[in-house]
């Protein structure tokens, strides 16, 4: 039987299993995004503070995380911490690992967005008597978000693809299930092509959204 016939015949069997994995991949991505946004905002503020030790600590974190592969970080969190007595379940390890990695990346995006808003606006708002947190919330962030959105979407696409790394710590996402299916059926080409299609179906719309937002942001500026 030919390659395509097998693909057509087996797709109804493979697809539900792989799509369950896609749900897990989206869960990992969603969890990681939450950690990355919270951590990224915190780091961005730390990077912009005038107190040098805080700034240096944040800068070191960002450089270390951006200078090492996500896979290595994931292995440190999953295998390394387990050896040190803290074993995280695979899914949680993947969320924490990708989230901590994303925080370093997003901190730069947030910092660039916030510093693109003219200083005069902050000074004006402060001199009008707004507390610093309100200045951030009502004056700077609403404008900065428009500038940051395209980069954020690109990050989301990258994150979605990076969830495949979670398969190497046995988190049951798409790749992990695909490898199990291959072990049962030996139909590696058909299965991995289906996996590629699932990722394309998720990432292409997202990256087009990023491109559209980019154009919108440029027109707005």
């Amino acid at each position: 039987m030919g390659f395509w016939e097998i693909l057509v015949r087996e797709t109804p069997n493979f697809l539900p299993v792989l799509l369950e994995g896609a749900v897990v991949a989206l869960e990992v991505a969603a969890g990681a995004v939450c950690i990355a946004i919270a951590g990224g905002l915190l780091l961005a503020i730390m990077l912009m503070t005038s107190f040098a030790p805080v700034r240096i600590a944040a800068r070191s974190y960002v450089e270390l995380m951006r200078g090492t592969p996500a896979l290595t970080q994931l292995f440190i969190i999953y295998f390394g911490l387990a050896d040190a007595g803290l074993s995280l379940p695979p899914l949680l390890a993947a969320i924490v690992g990708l989230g901590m990695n994303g925080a370093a990346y997003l901190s730069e995006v947030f910092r660039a967005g916030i510093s693109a808003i003219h200083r005069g606006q902050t000074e004006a708002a402060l001199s009008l008597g707004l507390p610093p947190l309100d200045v951030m919330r009502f004056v700077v962030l609403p404008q900065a978000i428009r500038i940051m959105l395209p980069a954020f979407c690109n990050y989301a696409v990258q994150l979605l693809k990076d969830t495949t790394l979670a398969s190497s710590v046995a988190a049951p996402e798409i790749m992990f299930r695909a490898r199990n299916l291959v072990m049962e059926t030996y139909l590696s080409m058909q299965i991995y092509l289906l996996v590629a299609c699932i990722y394309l179906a998720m990432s292409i719309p997202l990256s087009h959204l990023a491109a559209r937002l980019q154009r919108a942001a440029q027109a707005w500026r």
Partner: protein
Amino acid sequence: MIRFTQELLENLPEWGPQMLAAALQTLQLTLASFLFATIMGAIVALARTSRFPALRWIAIVFIEVGRGTPALVILFIIYFGLPTILPALEFDSFTAAVIGLGLQGGALLGEVFRAGIEAIERGQREASLSLGLTPAQTMTDVIAPQAMRIVLPPIGNYAIGLLKDTSIASIIAAPELMLRAKDLASSSFMPMHLYVLAALFYFAMSYPLSLIVRRLETALSKGHR
């Protein structure tokens, strides 16, 4: 923390040389993939800006698929998938990694090159053509030197990303840093030590590269927008 450092230092004479050799393999893998990606990127950019719609469409599909598919999936298709269809397409894991990372890099760099070419004003191309330069001369003497300034920083950033992405090749057992770290971790039962050591090796390679790229970015943006 102190005990961790002590144990790491105690084992360093044994691990150090092995990790260093593996780091060189990582650099080889990065360099080979980078060269392949550059060639592919140039072809993709030329096809993407071609006069023929068919070529443009092939390039667009290649770019979208290359950018939208995770590197790990591409490596698995090439390493595990291809031989099941055509036994002649069975590659060793290192070659499969170079092909996979290079193809994906071709899609990324193709867009970078295109942006560089298109950023040079159309008028310049027309002017040099009307001065009697051949299309090839126009490309190499007029457009490429100016486009270089625009594309160098993103190429540098791509190279840094690629260096880190080669760690994925360990999953198809290509000989590089992460695979060596895994092997040593399972034989010594000290995963934390070895993965931290691996992280330090990656950092030692990528950080200087990122400093160069940042310097390049500021140097090249001087006197221009």
